[in-house]
């Protein structure tokens, strides 16, 4: 375990130093995206990996987080940090409203229901005039400061904010794994009947996992809105986002703390670099190569990449 801790510290130290070595915006943007997806991947992993409830609706939480912040800021001038907290609240609310009936469904049926939920939320926002409908919301440009959550001349603060989010998500996940919750979640995943017979309230604990997942994803939604400064439903509440989160957790290793982080470190550079180097001449070669790698990973290493990196620390 000690060795694991050392590796973890080195990893974070490297992340802290990284922007001082790479000063161009693109490599920084790349790492920001990796950490953002890593954080969301951890969020997905709690419900999908630990509790075993495959969700294709997490983009809805991302959207609710982004929209709560954007609406509050653009209509009422409410600080985006407060927007972030309220976004978490509304996402949790959505998780409860959706989770309560849907957790009665099992296996594939739950996954199908979450696809529907994600799509419904997208359609709602597409037609909701107050929230900018299909045009979306332009976030008002404010003075550059940590308080305003906006930085125009450098990506550095964004970088450290998302790094802190990643660290927070890892801590949450660690706390879950080490606490009773983690055991409950895994029990629910492995054998729901058995878990129920031992007195675990399956419904409630699934809900807890879903809420945790929603909160971590919602925070990322807020970050995205403040980073890109423009959101619209087709992109912020996209089924593909949910699928990507699932892929990230799968590549890295389901139900492992570090799995999604590794997944994001492989997946995001892969998409970005195949796009940059091969995408600009079109014809979709980048997507073919990308698909090939995903297929290889899935067939050769279905348990995820986690074991390769951490065989000694677990």
């Amino acid at each position, binding site marked *: 375990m000690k060795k694991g801790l050392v590796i973890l510290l080195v990893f974070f130290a490297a992340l802290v130093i990284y922007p001082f070595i790479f000063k161009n915006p*693109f490599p920084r943007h790349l790492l920001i995206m990796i950490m953002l997806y890593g954080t969301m991947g951890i969020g997905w992993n709690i419900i999908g990996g630990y509790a075993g409830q495959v969700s294709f609706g997490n983009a809805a939480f991302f959207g609710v987080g982004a929209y709560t912040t954007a609406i509050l800021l653009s209509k009422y001038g409410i600080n985006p940090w407060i927007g972030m907290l309220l976004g978490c609240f509304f996402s949790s609310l959505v998780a409860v409203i959706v989770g309560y009936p849907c957790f009665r469904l099992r296996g594939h049926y739950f996954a199908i229901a979450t696809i529907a939920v994600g799509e419904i939320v997208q359609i709602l926002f597409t037609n909701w005039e107050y929230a900018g409908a299909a045009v979306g919301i332009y976030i008002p440009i404010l003075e550059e400061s940590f308080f305003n959550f906006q930085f125009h001349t450098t990506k550095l603060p964004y970088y450290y904010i998302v790094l802190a989010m990643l660290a927070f998500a890892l801590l949450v996940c660690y706390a879950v794994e080490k606490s009773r919750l983690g055991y409950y979640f895994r029990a629910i995943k492995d054998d729901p009947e058995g878990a129920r017979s031992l007195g675990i309230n399956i419904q409630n604990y699934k809900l807890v996992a879903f809420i945790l997942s929603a909160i971590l994803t919602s925070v990322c939604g807020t970050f995205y809105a403040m980073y890109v400064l423009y959101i619209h439903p087709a*992109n912020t509440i996209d089924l593909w986002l949910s699928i990507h989160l699932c892929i990230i957790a799968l590549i890295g290793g389901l139900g492992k703390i570090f799995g999604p982080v590794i997944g994001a470190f492989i997946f995001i550079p892969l998409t970005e670099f195949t796009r940059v180097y091969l995408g600009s001449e*079109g014809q979709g070669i980048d997507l073919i190569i990308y698909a090939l790698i995903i297929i290889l990973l899935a067939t050769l290493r279905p348990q995820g990449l986690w074991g390769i990196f951490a065989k000694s620390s677990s």
Partner: protein
Amino acid sequence: MKKIFRMFCLSLLVLSFASFAYAQEEIKIGVIYPLTGPLASTGQVLLEGVKLAAEIVNGNYNLNMPLAKGEGLPKLKGAKIKIIPGDHQGKPEVGMAEAERLITQEKVVAILGCYNSSVTATASQATERYGIPFVNESSTSPTLTDRGFKWFFRTTPHDGLFSENFFMFLRDLSKKKKVGANTIALFAENTLFGSDSVKYQTKYAEKYGFKLVGTVLYPAKSTQLTSEVQKLKGMNPKVVMQTAYIADAILSMKTYRELNFAPEAILANDAGFIDPEFVKSLGKDANYILSREVWAKDLAKKKPMIKIVADMFEKRTGKHMDGTSSRAFTAMIVLADAINRAGSTEPAKIQEALLKTNIKADQLVMPWDGVKFDPKTHQNMLGKGIIVQVQNGEYVTVWPFNLATKQIVWPFPKWEGR
């Protein structure tokens, strides 16, 4: 096996962080389009349009357009344009990152793109931060130029102007033919495209003094429009202004025929009514509808240059030139013209030169009155759409009258006896 995987993963990481840079020899222009993903084919067509324009600027062609004659940019010692493509996959955050990458790593002097309004929105925020000129060719969301950005320029007319064209057309027509098409009903699908169009049409109907007798919205993907068309019929408008995608466009025409509804004109808003499927599946019943368009092949009859450029495009790509590629082509010409007049690759000088752009109608492959940017919003003030009519299964230009190749058939003939 594990070893190979470890190597594989590490090499991916190393590849990820390798940065790269080129020496600046030519004038580099970043062009950001959806080159992969669901819009890939449109992105390719756009990029080809831009490439053709660069080829004409770089080579020596006897065409009446800026920079066609003589190689390269004369005021920059014949420097050539080099296009650096970027792919945004239809995603706003990717478009933003691509703009930043092209500016900081490829050192482009200006950016052109991005087709999708949502991507243009974020990519132009990046160019605004870096102080690099951005020329947009075909994103029509009016909001984009309302932001008052310093570095953002748009050559295409936006949705508001296109809507206004309908009323300019009706006004011109009433002067010419003395037709009193004064009552209008709006008929549209209810997503962004339809509801936005209705908003603008309502606004301009009032401004131009037309009487709006009613608005009928229906859910996109409807499989039945009978009750909607009955409602329309009850309103008894002289003109139906319609916004629809392909499936509902066809369905509405069939329903009109079934219910024998024939107003004086069906004036459609692009999209479904100019889709190749429209004429193909309706056959004769497609005749005589009017639609807004951005470009049409038959414009070449009045402007021979259009045929030359369209033929070059077809030879290059094997595809017909259309409203998308012609607009991308034009934006590149406008940008190259500004860089040449600036006589410099300094962004501030290019921005100034863009503001002073004044390209005449006869130098364009578009049906516009020219290119001249509004000093405040940087919207091209001289852009214009055209109105086409289906006659014998072909789309022919009927407005503006000076570009028309056929006489307009008005009113829309009754269904019986066709």
